């Protein structure tokens, strides 16, 4: 089964001082599928994700080299407009960081950055994205409340709605359910499964069952290296590498 590649990572190396965090990473991320990056803590999954939207720029100690091609455009090239670039991707982090403003404005802020100015348009889209993130019913009467009053699970869905509001093609999620209760986690997973028809989703996780449930494509990483990648059936059903077998068997993590 062939599919279109959305993100092509070639010879990506990341150093923090003398310490190499990512070693020669080569990954193809298929379009409109859920790609799960799997691996034990500290294997460089988060750093890999941050390379994709250049959040690595915020960390002076990180030296990034290689290429990340999105639609045949090397986003690591210095001339890229990183602010435009980041709007191609919605980000969901380990724990939710609502902006210090109302629930409504959390979404409206993202819309305004996208250049939408008409109030009616904003109203319509705020509602749309909150529905898409499965949050609308819970917050419809609380739009003018500060976003931090929401529960953690609700905040995470708000952050998802906010990420969608920049109208991205890609969703980057960094262990988005690790701080959430089971029900909120399920909400997020279900939403992802729905969203994959329109978005390319890259999900970082160390939860095997989560990967199995929602992944189409799996990348297994260990100590900064890609050990194995392939469709979920290949990697889970018939892992080729010894380390993958051990990890999937729960022998180390």
């Amino acid at each position, binding site marked *: 089964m062939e599919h279109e590649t959305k993100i092509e990572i070639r010879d990506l190396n990341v150093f923090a001082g003398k310490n190499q965090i990512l070693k020669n990473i080569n990954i193809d991320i298929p379009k409109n599928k859920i790609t799960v990056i799997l691996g034990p803590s500290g294997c460089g999954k988060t750093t890999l994700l*941050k390379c994709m*939207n250049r*959040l690595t*720029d*915020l960390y*002076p100690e990180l030296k990034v080299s290689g290429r990340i091609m999105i639609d045949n455009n090397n986003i690591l090239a210095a001339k890229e407009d990183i*602010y*435009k670039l*980041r*709007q191609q*991707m*919605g*980000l969901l*982090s*380990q*724990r939710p*960081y609502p*902006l*210090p*403003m109302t629930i409504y404005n959390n979404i409206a*802020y*993202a819309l305004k*950055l*996208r250049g939408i100015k008409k109030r009616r348009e904003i109203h319509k889209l705020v509602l749309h994205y909150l529905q898409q993130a499965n949050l609308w019913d819970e917050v419809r009467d609380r739009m003018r*409340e*500060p976003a*931090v*009053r929401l529960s*953690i699970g609700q905040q995470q869905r708000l*952050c998802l709605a*906010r*990420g969608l*509001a*920049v109208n991205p093609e890609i969703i980057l999620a960094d262990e988005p359910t690790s701080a959430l209760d089971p029900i909120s986690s399920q909400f997020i997973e279900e939403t992802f499964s729905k969203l994959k028809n329109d978005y390319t989703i890259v999900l970082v996780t160390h939860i095997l069952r989560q990967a199995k449930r929602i992944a189409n494509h799996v990348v297994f990483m260990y100590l900064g290296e890609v050990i194995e990648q392939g469709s979920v059936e290949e990697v889970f059903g018939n892992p080729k590498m010894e380390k993958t077998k051990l990890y999937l068997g729960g022998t180390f993590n």
Partner: protein
Amino acid sequence: MKLARKIEEKFFKALMFLSTVFILIILAIIIYSIFEKGLKSISWEMITQIPQGGYYYGKGGGILNAILGSLTLAFGATALAFIIGLPVALYLNVFLVRHKKVITIIRFLLDLIWGIPSIVYGAFGFSLMILLGLQTSLLAGILTVTLFILPIMIRSMDEILSTVPIGLQEASYSLGSNKSETAFKIMTRQTVSGIITAILLSFGRAIGDAASVLFTAGYTDHLPNGLLEPVATLPLSIFFQLSSPVAEVQNRAYASALVLTLIILLVSLFSRGLGKRYHKTKINF
């Protein structure tokens, strides 16, 4: 082992308690002495009139010149220091993040000039005045006091801005905000109550200092009358009244100190209330 831990716990608890009580007692004594001596001679006349001839030898009048002078000078200097200081603090925390060494040097320098005594600022302000051709005036006072409170303004805003979680900044950037949007729309909002505290600290320092205004703002028995005229200030007014040989005038000095304390109290209550109103809508997990 267990016993040792228990004793340790008791010891440190007692130590914290005693230190707190000690500080409170000292504070209470200061406030008591201001009230005790000040209340005797405070009067409506004192806070609504300017000094009349021979005021410093016991004749009538009040310190309205110094009250209004101090207020204009302190508000002016605090506003100016805020306008200059907030961008500096944001620049350190948003734009310079890739240059840790530069940040460390700037912070070190700010901490250093924070410790310089205010009389040195006064002297510096005075030479600046000569350079600019200014006379002792409200403007010269504001400029000098601004310089004097800038380090505290910048460093306290810097401290609070540096507590903004990196995750929140990442969230802001991931939406496509640029650095100034992140600085002014996200970071500043997130730290409003801390920024109010920074302004308050600076205001307290601005209104309470005598040495920096001695050569620069001068002193006058008249009400503030424009940026280029000298103004009276409460700390200097207190100083002049205290140096009077007349006991009654010395008591008026305490009354003036009382007025100064009340101004600081009112301003801080007001801004605390402001900060709290904002905070209420903020914290709640």
